[in-house]
């Protein structure tokens, strides 16, 4: 296909998409109106199960099956990265030289690492009470560990981060989500139905039945998956060299 025909194809496709989007926008309800059919029902369902944050109720109760799909996508994506970014036969590992970091940067990283880790765990634990949840907190906790790479060097990060343990943790927490789903079936309900545990007192950590447990499973899964993903990227960027060694 010559460039001219390609341009025409793009113009045609883009123009059609734009026309459809404009037509769809014209039929949308007005911005900020008082009519929220889905929102009203979701809030009612969340309050019936003593969950303060409706978003957590949608993610881990009303649409828990969708969340399982998203978790599977993340799991598969990380698995694909691990396979793609492995050390090939014509590559060798060349451990990086220890590097020099200014003292204030190193001190900052060492102080902020535990603070960020605890904040990530706080965001995971309060998923059904305030904005946040497993995904957000898991990413924060995983990012916190990589302050070791920024504030010291790659060898220091490797010393506090056993990748194998995080790979196992990733698989374990993904299966924990499935086990919790099947527990609903065994208890006589449906897959991932939130009928297993008492709903507890509204606005406490134990409220919402299985929601806090599913939330914790997702938090652990995301944190492990991000650590494994970044480990492969760091390996490729810092350690693995082309050529089969000299």
């Amino acid at each position, binding site marked *: 296909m010559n460039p001219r025909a390609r341009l025409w194809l793009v113009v045609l496709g883009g123009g059609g998409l734009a026309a459809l989007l404009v037509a769809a926008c014209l039929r949308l309800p007005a*911005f*900020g109106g008082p009519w929220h059919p889905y929102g009203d029902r979701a809030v009612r369902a969340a309050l019936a199960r003593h969950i303060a*944050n409706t*978003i957590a109720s949608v993610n881990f109760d009303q649409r828990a099956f969708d969340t399982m799909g998203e978790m599977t996508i993340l799991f598969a994506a990380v698995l694909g990265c691990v396979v793609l970014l492995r050390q090939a036969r014509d590559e060798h590992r060349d451990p990086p030289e220890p590097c020099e970091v200014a003292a204030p940067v190193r001190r900052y990283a060492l102080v902020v690492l535990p603070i960020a880790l605890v904040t990530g765990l706080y*965001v995971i634990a309060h998923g059904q009470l305030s*904005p*946040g*949840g497993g*995904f*957000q*907190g898991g*990413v*924060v906790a*995983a*990012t916190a560990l*990589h302050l070791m790479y920024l504030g010291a060097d790659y060898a220091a990060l490797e010393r506090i981060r056993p990748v194998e343990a995080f790979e196992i943790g990733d698989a374990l927490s993904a299966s924990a989500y499935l086990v919790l789903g099947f527990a609903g079936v065994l208890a006589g309900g449906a897959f991932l139905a939130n009928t297993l545990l008492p709903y507890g007192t509204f606005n406490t950590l134990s409220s919402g039945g299985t929601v806090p447990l599913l939330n914790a499973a997702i938090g652990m899964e995301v944190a492990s998956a*991000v650590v494994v*993903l*970044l480990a492969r*990227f*760091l390996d*490729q*960027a*810092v350690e693995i*060299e*082309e*050529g089969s060694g000299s």
Partner: protein
Amino acid sequence: MADAVVVVALLAVAGLATAAVANRDPARQALVLAVLGTALAVLFTVLQAPDVGLSQLAVGSALTPLLIMLSVRKVRRRSAHGKDSKQ
């Protein structure tokens, strides 16, 4: 008048997204992308979606830049390596 902050956030997102596309160097694109992440978090907050805003902050402020910059470093090292072996 109450929507002024929404307009500000939308304009910032539109401007930053355009700047991210207009830049050609991946390192500079990553810088614009990091700022775009915070602008998107503000937009989600003023649209009363703090959960999505938190996701955007968590991913966009440190994780995405780190992934992009590590890929840039790998590509640069590979091309430098290729030059060395040719000489």
